[in-house]
């Protein structure tokens, strides 16, 4: 096992933690945190696996991760704004399942 694989496994761990938290938490801020941690996990897998051979670092995954980080911050900003709006309208930063019925 190389260091690359070690980090990739850490990435998988982060991803799965994020999925779990996303599913069980009710508070939207937590869900958003969970998505961000999931994202970090994916980025880590994406970049770490490029380092399996020690010749030179592959710039393509790095570029993809930078793109991914920017996309993630955009999505996070939007999600947070939506959360604030929901909280302003319903008084709670949660999804209310009951009211749809």
């Amino acid at each position, binding site marked *: 096992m190389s260091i690359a694989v070690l980090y990739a496994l850490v990435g998988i761990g982060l991803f799965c933690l994020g999925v779990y938290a996303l599913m069980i938490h009710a508070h939207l801020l937590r869900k958003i945190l969970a998505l961000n941690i999931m994202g970090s996990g994916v980025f880590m897998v994406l970049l770490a696996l490029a380092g399996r051979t020690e010749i030179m670092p592959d710039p393509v995954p790095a570029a993809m991760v930078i793109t991914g980080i920017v996309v993630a911050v955009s*999505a996070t900003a939007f999600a947070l704004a939506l959360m604030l709006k929901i909280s302003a309208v319903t008084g709670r930063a949660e999804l209310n399942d009951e009211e749809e019925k």
Partner: protein
Amino acid sequence: MGDFLLTMPWAVVLILLPLVGAIVCFLWPKNVNQLGLVTLAGVFLSVVGLGAWLLENGVYHHAVGGWNAPLGIHLYADGLSLVMLGITALVGLFVSVYATAYFDRVQSEQFWPLWLFLLTALNALFLSADMFNLYVTLELLGLSAVALVALAGGKAALNGAMRYLLASLLGSLLFLFGVALLYHTYGSLDLAILSEQIEASPTVWMALGLISAGLLLKTALFPLHFWLPPAHASAFSPISALLSALVVKASFYLLLRLWLELFWPISGSVAGLLGILGVMAILWGSLQALRQTRVKMLVAYSTVAQIGYLFLAFPLAMGAGVTAWNAVMYLAISHALAKAAMFMAAGNLLRFGGHDRIADLDQLAQRLPLTVAAFALAGVSLIGLPPSGGFIGKWLLLEAALMQGRWDLAVVIVLGGVLAAMYLFKVLGYAFTEASTPSKVTAVPVRMEWAALLLASGAILLGFLAPLILPLLAIGTPFDAFSSAQEVMS
């Protein structure tokens, strides 16, 4: 003129034009309606141009930046992309016309940039041949769709939007994870290169699982459909139309494309699973639709059911390849037209009576005949009654099912039609009766009624256009990858 048609880089125009339109609408919101309609008209013409090009030259390739794959990104168009682009432009045009009458000033200033971003994302997605680029288009698509849902602003819409956003982001991340695994297995992001090299391995199986799960979540296949009804039912009606008709189809298209071109050699063996989910989606979605008391919620659940049909092709493709895929594409485009028309009709009756309670539709058949006609015609196609696009699609699908003795699927195909008839005619039946408590009515702009009716008529007309559309679909033989796989197997 002919030269012009064939030399213009239509695919590039299809991506950049709506993007420029979005920026212009954002900068100068004074004349958004006119700007938007001009953009849509341009997009529509570009699809026609691309179609002419494809008919002349076969598939379209464009190496962006002059860099060939695997270093650069390729744009790619074949019959499958063309049909998706075409349906997008057509539905988009009608929804846009509808929207100019539907929204007030402030709303249309918000609507147009977002909708043009959505259109950019759709076109870019249909034209991309690069896995990571597809991820970016998926994010662009998801964010613009969610922002559009949230425009309605009410409690239900915001909740729906949030649920949709979370599902969409989760889906994108799953997809990206799959892309990462593929990249590190084969060192490329290009679809064509990947498809040449792909073979079964644990990593590829994981990639298949992740990518499929992400896209199924975005396509809202049962049981991952939980986010769809609240989002689609609570958005503004033209937006519901766009979401149900196009956005869901985009991720379906991608799934179809990836399974066909990338994963088919290995995914054929698990295609049955998608079929089972499809069956359950048809049954569950239809039963839920039957229980609804509001038109928009009913129509949204109908989308859940109709999505199920699209997945029946996967188990059938093993023995009836092209017929099954043709069937599913025909169903997809018919559903796009019909469902958009239906949501627009639902928007009209909401505007008219101020509510969409089914039991209180109050003689709409007489008072809003064009809208009810639109709803009915769209319904005919959704049920799969002749003559309509839905009928052709179901016919082909049934043929594919019976050809290989899949009685279970055949029964579900027919049963789904009957169930659809039951829930759709529930609405139509109440359009003939009087409500117990009459409500105040508001006039519906003529444009909104006709936009819905024309689009619904389009769904009917599709019933006669199969000899035109099926050859278009065959450009570049997108379904051939499958046939060769079939030969190898047999």
